[in-house]
């Protein structure tokens, strides 16, 4: 790959960047549709039905509607921050994809600090929420952004600590090498089951999904930090939330579920029936998105299964349960690894 000459390398990198960006942005309408459809069926109704075949074009119609809506700038806002906030939420959400390997060939970059880069970039998104809440000069927005940022930084610690067990197995911070290490040994969900559970819970809290959706809590805060936003600026907050969900699912897949590796027993059976070219180029992506898709379905399933937590319960869960458990997981992993 590396000795192709500079021009071709640059061209290939640009193609990869465009591909990754398309995947990340196209995933938003797909996920919105899946969420509404699954939600509908869980509640024994149909969900979107009329725009396009079984409602698949509904999210695109919604996006177009949002783009054509009036862009209201309230009178009392801090204009610079008010305009920058959606960008500050949108850019970090997408930037996490710069090091996620979708397959052996579909990745933008493979740096040796991949995991740290993802954690640091994704926590930059909090600035977007804080800026939106502060600049809106609205009580709901300010309270929503305060809650949101306190929640996100609290669960950031549990999220960061739950990954450490994986690093002790992988002996590398590069996401590609973490997957390769799982190919040599086993998926890290098996030796790191506690870490996997902790990461999943923290990922739900980080993406403000139910049962941790207190920043939005329609009944008390109407919508939280983006209440004063309209048109495309609202859509950007909306998109960055969905893109963040996808990136958390991708990170979880890479760290615990073997990334692009096939499923243990079914994988070789299916791949044995296909031509070698397909197995090499298409199947890794298929396995990756199968796992990510399964996790996205899990997001929606959980949404309609659990009631929302109270704020004190939320903070107690983060600081008094997840944090000690994550530290215990580090000790346990170290102990097991050293005694073997």
């Amino acid at each position, binding site marked *: 790959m590396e000795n192709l000459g500079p021009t071709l390398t640059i061209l290939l990198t640009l193609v990869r960047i465009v591909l990754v960006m398309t995947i990340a942005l196209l995933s938003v309408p797909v996920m919105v549709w899946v969420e509404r459809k699954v939600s509908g069926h869980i509640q024994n109704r149909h969900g979107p039905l009329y725009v396009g075949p079984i409602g698949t074009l509904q999210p695109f119609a919604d996006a177009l509607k949002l783009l054509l809506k009036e862009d209201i700038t309230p009178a009392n806002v801090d204009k610079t921050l008010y305009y920058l906030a959606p960008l500050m939420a949108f850019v970090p959400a997408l930037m996490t994809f710069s090091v996620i390997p979708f397959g052996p060939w579909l990745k933008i970059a493979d740096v040796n600090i991949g995991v740290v880069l993802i954690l640091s970039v994704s926590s930059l998104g909090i600035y977007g929420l804080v800026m939106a809440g502060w600049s809106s000069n609205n009580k709901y927005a300010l309270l929503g952004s305060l809650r949101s940022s306190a929640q996100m930084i609290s669960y950031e610690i549990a999220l960061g600590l739950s990954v450490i067990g994986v690093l002790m197995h992988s002996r590398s911070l590069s996401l590609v090498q973490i997957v390769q290490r799982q190919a040599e040994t086993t998926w890290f969900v098996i030796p790191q089951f506690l870490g996997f559970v902790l990461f999943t819970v923290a990922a739900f809290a980080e993406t403000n999904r139910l049962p941790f959706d207190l920043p939005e809590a329609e009944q008390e805060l109407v919508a939280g930090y983006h209440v004063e936003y309209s048109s495309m*600026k609202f859509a950007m907050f909306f998109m960055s939330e969905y893109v963040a969900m996808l990136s958390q699912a991708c990170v979880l897949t890479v760290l615990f579920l073997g990334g692009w590796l096939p499923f243990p027993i079914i994988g070789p059976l299916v791949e044995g029936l296909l031509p070698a070219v397909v197995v090499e180029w298409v199947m890794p992506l298929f396995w990756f998105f199968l796992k990510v898709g399964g996790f996205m379905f899990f997001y929606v399933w959980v949404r309609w299964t659990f009631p929302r937590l109270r704020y004190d319960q939320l903070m107690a869960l983060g600081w008094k349960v997840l944090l000690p458990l994550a530290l215990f997981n580090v000790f346990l992993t170290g102990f097991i690894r050293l005694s073997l």
Partner: protein
Amino acid sequence: MQEELILGYLPILVFLIIVTCVGAGMIIASALIGRKNPNSEKISTYECGMVPIKDARQRFDVRFYLIAMLFILFDIEVVFLYPWAVLFDRFNPVIFGFIEMVLFIVILLFGYIYIWRKGVLSWS
């Protein structure tokens, strides 16, 4: 070696520039395309139909500030753990690195127990 290291980050920079341009383009596009028909009611601060009472930027609970301080402490702890986790079975002797980190975490645990008993972590 060093040049290779920097070249590895170049695609990330290009990606950052493209993403920022797309995002900025979306903000500009919505400002240009949408209708503009403001009136004084429409652009007043939203407070469920009421006339807004006072400024939104009032005092808020100090516990948010405490959480932010604790976050910095514990997040630095996490960052310290990362390089250790990658190398922890390559120390000589092997048990040395593990005991060092246990001591580091135990010292932090005293602080953790202290803030717990002071009631910083309870929100009732």
